[in-house]
């Protein structure tokens, strides 16, 4: 067998951890999409060489601790309010790259007003929207994006439209707003999807540099803890159930 030291040479290096990612142990469950998306954001920041110019706004939800994982300046917002913070930061520091990182409960329920109005004003920011159809941090309650019939701890018999209304396709709403320049729905469950998702994130950050207004990226995601499925089964369930309702692709500004 070849000596490992023989193989570990610069010319053989095909992958390394982004320097924008910290060494802190991630608090996400194994299989969670957050970790992948964090990595992609970190890589984009590093590749664009904008670490010193980036200000992140994290939400309330599982990614409340995002500030532990990306080595940039961070503001942690109250539940749903990240777009309001980002509005002020982007207006007071137009020289910075400002992004919010929000989950579906944060963005599509309690923070609906803030996201709609920030996008409608065309704030020059990136919005990264993790949609896994459930409240992960509080233990798997029904989210605005929970699918019809999908069981959660507050819809134990499955989401009932009569009781809870329909799942909200907020990204379709966002795409209608004149302030948004780029609206896309991505996933990060396969290598191909990860590459596409990264390309979308890169484009969104470049849009901020070009003062194009709001760029909005939904990432259809899994929550294997909340869904009570293994990571592999979660991905399968997402493909089978989430993708038909939340169809992947660019909604605006391909």
């Amino acid at each position: 067998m070849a000596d490992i030291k023989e193989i570990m040479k610069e010319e053989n290096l095909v992958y390394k951890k982004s320097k924008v990612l910290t060494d802190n142990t991630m608090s996400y469950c194994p299989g969670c999409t957050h970790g992948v998306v964090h990595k992609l954001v970190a890589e984009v920041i590093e590749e664009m060489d904008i670490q010193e110019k980036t200000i992140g706004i994290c939400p309330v939800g599982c990614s409340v601790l995002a500030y532990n994982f990306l080595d940039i300046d961070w503001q942690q917002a109250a539940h749903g309010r990240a777009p309001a913070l980002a509005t002020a930061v982007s207006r007071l520091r137009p020289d910075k790259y400002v992004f919010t990182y929000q989950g579906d409960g944060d963005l599509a329920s309690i923070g609906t007003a803030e996201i709609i109005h920030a996008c409608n004003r065309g704030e020059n920011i990136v919005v990264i929207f993790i949609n896994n159809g459930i409240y992960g941090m509080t233990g798997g309650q029904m989210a605005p994006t929970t699918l019809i019939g999908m069981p959660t701890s507050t819809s134990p018999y499955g989401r009932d439209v009569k009781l809870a209304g329909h799942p909200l396709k907020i990204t379709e709403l966002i795409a209608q707003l004149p302030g948004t320049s780029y609206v896309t729905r991505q996933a990060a469950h396969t290598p191909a999807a990860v590459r596409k998702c990264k390309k979308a994130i890169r484009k969104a950050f470049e849009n901020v540099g070009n003062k194009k207004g709001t760029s909005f990226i939904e990432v259809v995601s899994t929550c294997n803890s909340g869904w009570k499925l293994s990571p592999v089964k979660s991905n399968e369930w997402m493909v089978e159930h989430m993708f038909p309702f939340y169809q992947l692709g660019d909604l605006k500004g391909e």
Partner: protein
Amino acid sequence: MADYRLMKGNEVIAEAAIRYGCDGYFGYPITPQSEVMETLMLRKPWEETGMVVLQAESEVAAINMVYGGASCGKKVMTSSSSPGISLKQEGITYIAGAELPCLIVNVVRGGPGLGTIQPAQSDYFQAVKGGGHGDYKLIVLAPASVQEMNDFVGQGFDLAFKYRNPVMILSDGVIGQMMEKVQLGEFKPRWTNEEIEKMHGSWATVGKPASRERNIITSLELDSSRQEKFNHKLIEKYKTISENEVRFEKISCDDAEYLFVAYGSSSRICQKAIELARAKGIKVGLLRPITLFPYPTKQIQEMLKQVKGILAVEMSAGQMVEDVRLAVNGKIPVEHFGRLGGMIPTPNEVVDALEKQIIKGK
């Protein structure tokens, strides 16, 4: 040359903010304070100083814009009136918890609920005792004139940055709407981004250079022992503020046998009541708290050597009177007089109340 104008209290808040180098105002319309944002929009300070002025979609968004701006080390503010200030409470407690400097103006109207658009002082508890959740304090300044509406904007920002703590100007519909002569301040340039980095770069989110650790603005601490330590740090800060920042005014107190304690517009009414009472031979003075937190507790206690009774006059059902009673601790009678629901007491009513509740009641 001194710049004197005849202006409304609310207009002066806007003008003072521009002149003091405020970086951003975020608001939402509500009576009786809408002139603050209206004045700013008419003045277009973004053309003059670069100040950002934004009409937010709600009071909730406005206060969170303040959180975002303050996190960047900018001088930012919002204004509203009672129901709107209730909506801002979530943001205010996060701002206090994240130790951010900012200025919040409450031009108080009567409540509860939608209440009335007329003046009241019924938000004292909310402002002074913490309207949001958790153990925190605002520094609360209570202007009694249009001049103080002007002065407290600059002083408020100074205090906010000195202690990295939100400051509230607790005004009311009288002070906000009335016109008086005011001497406006000199124009102060806004801080440059370089100056902010020098002064506040140790904590503000201005973009992380390779030379330092990342700055994180948060009020989250999942480790209870560390949260408790942080709570104690806040308590220490509030103690320092209490020791150093108490402001008050005494009027006709030298020979006073009785005392009014009143702030804001009630203190103006009490000044006239003092004239009327003294014409009747009643020696009464006024202690006007200018800071409501920190409260002039010691200054009230010092008056106990000479006065026989205290009437707390406020346009509420009796809120600040509790702090007077805490200071007095049962040593002399303390009573409350106030009108409610937007009704403003007359000086004669105040004198009558002093006679009935304090003098004859003794």
